[in-house]
């Protein structure tokens, strides 16, 4: 074979790098809008979509004052919270999967959520004794999450020089069990707050107005921005630290930034919503299957579809056995666990090459 001469006129097939197509962006936004609208109009009191849209858009609408209050004070904050939590968990899951080059890495399997859970439990228990305040919850969750992820990573490496998919996940599961045990211990020792802790653990998006939304918003936005600007770097890191480093990327530093920020995002989401598992694994994987594997596609789409997914899961949680509410963590686990098996099967098949 000879090297083709470099011709002055380039051959015609246009080369398109993997990037987010406008069609997918539109689909993602449509999903968010549809999920949000469904969340606003459905419930114990069914409302007219047109009227709700007009009302939310600030126009005159046919909603009764009482109905308007349901939208403003109950459903809208809850929908927005669902979008924020779902987007953040899903984006963080996609980022963990990229940074650990591990399709099963997820805030829950790595122990981040359990660590955050311990942090929040300590804050709730402490608050009852006047030692802490609930405002510390995000920070305590963050510290707990980081400690747990670091521990999982170190333990996963302890088995051998190279951390494989299996060893990292096993370490994560061990860490998660350990932190959950600690958390249960703290919770059981403090009977007076046990109900409060329980309802938080099972995951809930029930809000009283906008308080939780405002608590989460700054962390969520920060997490989104940092993770999204790293989308191309995550693609480079996929060739491994050595090669990424010969391509001029500070591999270890980039990894660390992504891990810390994804843990922050997870912790912030967990601290307001409780433990909602599997969002960070279902959504990114579905996106990868349908839209492509580049992080430039996976991260933004996980953000959008994650929000929409959790919004719909929450709708199910509060309408399936209305007027009672099923914890949203139960809904996501119901869908997530079977899905997880699928992922495990497909990734163990693909695992031969890694």
């Amino acid at each position, binding site marked *: 074979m000879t090297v083709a001469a470099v011709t002055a006129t380039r051959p015609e097939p246009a080369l398109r790098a993997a990037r987010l197509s406008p069609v997918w962006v539109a689909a993602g936004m449509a999903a968010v809008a549809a999920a949000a609208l469904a969340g606003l109009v459905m419930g114990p009191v069914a409302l007219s979509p047109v009227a709700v849209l007009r009302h939310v858009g600030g126009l005159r609408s046919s909603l009764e004052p009482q109905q308007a209050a349901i939208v403003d004070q109950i459903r809208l904050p809850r929908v927005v919270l669902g979008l924020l939590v779902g987007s953040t968990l899903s984006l963080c899951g996609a980022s963990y999967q990229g940074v650990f080059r591990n399709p099963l890495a997820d805030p829950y399997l790595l122990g981040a959520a359990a660590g955050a859970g311990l942090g929040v439990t300590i804050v709730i228990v402490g608050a009852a004794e006047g030692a802490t305040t609930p405002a510390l919850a995000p920070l305590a969750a963050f510290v707990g999450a980081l400690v747990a992820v670091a521990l999982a990573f170190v333990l996963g490496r302890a088995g051998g020089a190279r951390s494989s998919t299996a060893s990292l996940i096993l370490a994560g599961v061990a860490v998660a069990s350990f932190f959950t045990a600690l958390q249960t211990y703290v919770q059981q020792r403090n009977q007076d707050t046990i109900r409060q802790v329980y309802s938080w653990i099972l995951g809930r998006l029930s809000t009283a107005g906008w308080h939780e939304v405002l608590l989460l918003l700054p962390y969520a936005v920060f997490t989104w921005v940092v993770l999204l600007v790293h989308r*191309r770097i995550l693609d480079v890191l996929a*060739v491994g630290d050595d090669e990424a480093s010969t*391509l*001029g990327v500070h591999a270890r530093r980039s990894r660390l930034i992504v891990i810390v920020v994804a843990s922050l995002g997870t912790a912030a989401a967990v601290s307001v919503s409780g433990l909602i598992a599997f969002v960070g694994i279902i959504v990114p994987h579905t996106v990868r299957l349908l839209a492509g594997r580049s992080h430039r596609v996976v991260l933004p789409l996980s953000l959008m579809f994650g929000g929409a997914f959790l919004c719909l899961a929450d709708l199910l949680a509060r309408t399936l056995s209305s007027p009672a509410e099923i914890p949203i963590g139960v809904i996501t686990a119901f869908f997530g666990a079977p899905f997880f098996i699928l992922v495990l099967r497909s990734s163990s098949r693909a695992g031969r090459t890694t």
Partner: protein
Amino acid sequence: MICCRDVSVHLGDRLVLDRLDVELQRGGWLSIVGPNGAGKSTLLRYMAGLVPGSGELHLDGRRAGTLGRRERAQLIAYVPQVPIIPDGARVLDYVLLGRTPHIRPLGVEGPRDIAAVHDALARLELVELAEREVASLSGGERQRVLIARALAQGSPLILLDEPTTALDVGHQQQVLELIDDLRRTAELTVVTTTHDLTLAGQYAERLVLLHQGRIVVDGRASDVLTEENLARYYDARVRVVDDGGRPVVIPVRAVPT
């Protein structure tokens, strides 16, 4: 173009490279040979900045230690023996990764990067495969994709760790011809490691023979590939035949007694 002075590398507490001096001019092709465990890959990895060591490394007349990561990547491209191919990566996107040192750290590629990728794909006759998944390619095609990535990187110096090990003899020749063509037309400086001594002698202008972390012979193929050297350092029984000035190494089986 690349110059190692008094380079030693420890891996753990093992001395892997022992006070090496190597120098290679622009446009040259250096092939590092030596028995298993002699330190060939480590020397390449040291040049690529992947293992720390003592001594001095100069790239294009500048001390490697003073170069930033990106600057260094703009000077030197490295193709490992067993690269990690990301799941589902297409040829185009994989080759585009080579442009990383030219793209702002948190930015995305521009038209110049796409043009460079196109150039690399065209030179390696990969345009038709641009949309294929790298993992689905044959060994020879995959090696061309790796070289395309290094070429897209636009670095004047390319290090290839055993680029032909997994290929059959036809594809070995193909790949080595390609590298030689690029060396001439794109003015690249090439450093390779290999176990195939005959091919090393046919393509590289210069060979260094490593043994236990030291350079024991350095010179043209006919100086390095002698029966005596190969017996001494490889512990191998070979005959070396002259084929128009190039040595051909033939393993010889001991006659059973």
